[in-house]
């Protein structure tokens, strides 16, 4: 008979209390695991999503650039447009491989009794901007064609080839393709050419931002510096800055959730201590008997430590499972 089997035998003397202690610890450990996993997953997903944009930086209207760029990336609406002259100044060159003007805005849709969020972008750049997308049908080629997000198509039961009214346009547009479910905001937008988006908005040469891809990302800061000095009134935000901006917001949530996990761990630790101490107090006479039989202070301490250990090991399969 070893000390471990003695600890286990002692714990099993009050099975319900032992089980409740195990459940408490298992629950708190599971909370900790899930929160840590969530944090890891969130960071990875954020990096992945931003990497998928295929964009190195965005030129945005002056204001709070990080927030604006972040909002544009996620399809939100900002009532501010870039100066049209900027579009002409930033063009593909030896250093810049891609410049994609974007126009994002809300448009009431009276027939659907809803508001459409229209995402105008050059359709030939779609593969660069959203390389991970899978599309049923095809990317719109003609000016009267649109691409629908998954949610809109499934909500209205639309298929490729159907007609979809937009804004005040006299003729409904043709659904050329439907984006397969992405699980993100992308599912809720109507994608069209920038020109058609400007027509719906009734603002010629309106652009919300420029998405820019460079040929050599190692020279990114040099290119940004050059553009900022040459073109006054623009603000440039890199993808990593957007990620940092989002991460800062997420960090608050992380701290709060970690606090909850810490509290859960403290509660479970107190639960284990309670279980072991109650067992110890209930058996004070037994403790005296063991001392009489030759158990020294070290042996008694070892007995208590092993009891803690047995409880922790016994609950491990729960959260790991």
């Amino acid at each position, binding site marked *: *008979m*070893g*000390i471990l089997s*003695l600890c286990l*035998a*002692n714990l*099993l*003397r009050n099975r319900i209390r032992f089980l409740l202690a195990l459940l408490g610890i298992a629950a708190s450990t599971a909370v900790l695991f899930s929160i840590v996993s969530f944090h890891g997953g969130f960071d990875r997903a954020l990096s992945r999503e931003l990497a998928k944009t295929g964009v190195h930086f965005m030129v945005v209207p002056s204001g709070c650039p990080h927030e604006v760029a972040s909002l544009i990336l996620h399809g939100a609406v900002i009532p501010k447009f870039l100066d049209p002259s900027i579009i002409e100044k930033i063009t593909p060159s030896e250093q810049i491989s891609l410049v994609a003007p974007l126009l994002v805005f809300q448009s009431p849709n009276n027939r659907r009794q809803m508001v459409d969020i229209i995402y105008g972008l050059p359709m030939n750049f779609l593969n660069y901007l959203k390389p991970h997308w899978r599309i049923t049908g095809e990317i719109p080629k003609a000016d009267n064609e649109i691409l629908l997000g998954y949610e809109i198509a499934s909500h209205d039961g639309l298929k490729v080839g159907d007609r979809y009214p937009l804004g005040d346009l006299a003729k409904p547009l043709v659904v050329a393709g439907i984006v397969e479910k992405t699980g993100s905001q992308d599912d809720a937008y109507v994608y069209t050419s920038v020109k058609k988006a400007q027509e719906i908005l009734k603002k010629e040469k309106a652009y919300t931002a420029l998405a820019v891809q460079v040929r050599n990302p190692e020279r990114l800061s040099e290119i940004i510096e050059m553009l900022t000095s040459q073109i006054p009134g623009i603000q440039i935000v890199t993808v990593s800055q957007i990620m940092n901006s989002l991460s800062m917001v997420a960090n608050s949530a992380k701290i709060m959730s970690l606090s909850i996990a810490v509290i859960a761990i403290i509660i479970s630790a107190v639960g284990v201590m309670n279980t072991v101490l109650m067992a110890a107090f209930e058996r004070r*006479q*037994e403790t*005296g*008997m*063991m*001392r*009489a*039989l*030759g*158990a*020294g*202070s070290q*042996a008694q301490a070892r007995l208590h430590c092993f009891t803690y250990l047995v409880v922790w090991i016994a609950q491990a399969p729960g959260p790991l499972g």
Partner: protein
Amino acid sequence: MDSPSSGTVRINGEDVSNYPDLKRTRLRRDFFGFVFQQFYLIPSLTVYKNILLPLLFSGKPEDKGYIGYLIELVGLNGKESHLPHQLSGGEMQRVAVARALVNRPSCILADEPTGNLDSQNSERVFEILRRLNEEGHTVIIVTHNNDLAARTNRRITIRDGVVVSV
């Protein structure tokens, strides 16, 4: 386990009153065997494992032959795998006697060993203790039972905490 408030405690001529904790633990473990009035068996351990318990603290190897001899000595053959709640009071006390002997102590301290037993079981436990004494163990019994005390080799009477006869 406690320090004397006055006087000294001598074992084999050596004053052990001021022994440090570790030496006292060793002394209790190797020199003494304890039998209590209320048995104090671990309820979740079998008879066999209860007898083995002191070996857990002394680190001595399990001598199956000697443990078999102890079980036979206290008359518990066939009950090795019983749990304490499956035993009578007399049987539990006999397990406690076997447990007290497992470290082969020179001296057995028995605190009211028959206090919770009927006369038949008291007699049986007392006979075991007397036999151990005859085999060479020093057996010190604390008892309120005058009949039992009258059958011992030597009696020290304590009344209200004062030794009245030796």
